[in-house]
């Protein structure tokens, strides 16, 4: 992968420290009227992710056989898992409206996390800006949804029914802060999990070379950790998606 390091001050060389693997490398400089839209390693992985998901759901489905093969089973299982998640959490009425978004979100994060575990690739979900963008889209979208459905009654979300009025000055700020914290916790959870896992893998990878023969021990640890990271990659995509479903339900039902 030839890297043309045009970005000022960005490290496009071989990885040195455990954090250098997260560096953004610009492959093609693109400037849209002052907006920096350069094609980077992050953008490349996003495109690869979209292409793989598209191939999975089209070519992977094959001729749509009655008895599915491996690829078809994977796609159908993901589809039915998300459909069941939406049905269970959000519930029947209008839940399937959100299906394309939630399905795309889950597949995008899942493939992004898992593809990032391939050596020398890049994990775009290990960047706070990417996860925060997703979390803000969910947060803003859910808030707009709640306001459209419930109008001014949306404000009662911050003061649950049955709470005495004198509690309001105490409770309302807590509820508002916890509501505002949603996108932050949502984004930091995914970003921190991805970044920490990759950093630890890098640190132990360095140990392997430093310790020569005794490097077998950190190598064995890396193998075990890699399995754990695979689990974390799937789990975090699942957690992000299920929390999104919960927020959608909160917006529709307006009480927790």
């Amino acid at each position, binding site marked *: 992968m030839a890297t043309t390091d045009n*970005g000022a001050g*960005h490290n496009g060389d071989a990885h040195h420290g455990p*954090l*250098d693997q*997260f*560096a*953004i490398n*610009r492959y093609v400089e*693109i400037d*849209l009227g002052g*907006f*920096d*839209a*350069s*094609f*980077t390693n*992050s*953008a490349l992985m*996003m*495109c690869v*992710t*979209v292409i793989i*998901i*598209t191939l999975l*759901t*089209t070519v992977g*489905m094959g001729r*749509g*056989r*009655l008895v599915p093969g491996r690829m*078809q089973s994977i*796609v*159908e299982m993901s*589809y*039915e898992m998300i459909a069941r998640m939406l049905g269970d959490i959000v519930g029947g009425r209008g839940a399937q409206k959100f*299906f*394309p*978004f939630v*399905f*795309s979100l889950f*597949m*995008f994060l899942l493939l992004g996390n898992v593809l990032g575990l391939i050596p020398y690739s890049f994990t*775009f979900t*290990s*960047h*706070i*800006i*990417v996860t925060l*963008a*997703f979390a803000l889209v969910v947060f803003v979208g859910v808030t707009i949804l709640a306001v459209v459905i419930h109008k001014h009654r949306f404000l009662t979300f911050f003061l649950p029914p049955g709470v005495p009025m004198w509690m309001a000055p105490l409770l309302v700020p807590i509820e508002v802060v916890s509501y505002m914290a949603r996108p932050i916790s949502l984004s930091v959870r995914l*970003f921190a999990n991805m*970044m920490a896992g990759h950093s630890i893998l890098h640190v132990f990878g360095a140990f392997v070379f430093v310790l020569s023969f005794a490097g077998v021990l950190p190598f064995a640890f890396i193998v075990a950790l890699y399995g754990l990271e695979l689990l974390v990659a799937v789990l975090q995509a699942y957690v992000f998606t299920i929390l999104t479903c919960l927020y959608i339900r909160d917006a529709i039902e307006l009480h927790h």
Partner: protein
Amino acid sequence: MPQLEMGDYAPQIFWLVVTFVALMVIMWSVGLPRIRRVIEARESKISDDLAEAESAKGRAEAALKAYEEALAEARSKAHGVLAEIQAKLSAEADALRAELDADLAARAAEAEERIQETRAQALASLRDVAGDVARAATERLVGTAPSEAAARAAVEASMGEGR
């Protein structure tokens, strides 16, 4: 920490929006309807097969019921025929027996009659023979034969005593 490089935020957000919107459009227009079609086709195939099996079961049950009905009908018919034949046979036998009884009774009566007749004849000839014997014996003993009427009267008298 590369994650905090503000200068890298713009391209990441730009490409995130481009790729994710593209993904959603592809999923919404091509991917998901395709998967849904396949899953629905399978579900309808399964429910069709189940309905087919259900109706086949219903047909089998109907056939079994019809068979059992036919069997019961045939059995009751056979019973009827059997009872009829039995009744007819016993009636015939009764008639034959009655005829035979009547015949036998008639023949017995006839035989009885003949026996009486023969007996009466025998008795009558016995008197004649006894009369003749008595006359012959008297003739030998006394030398004179009593008249036929006297002999008869004597026989009658002695037979009456012997009784």
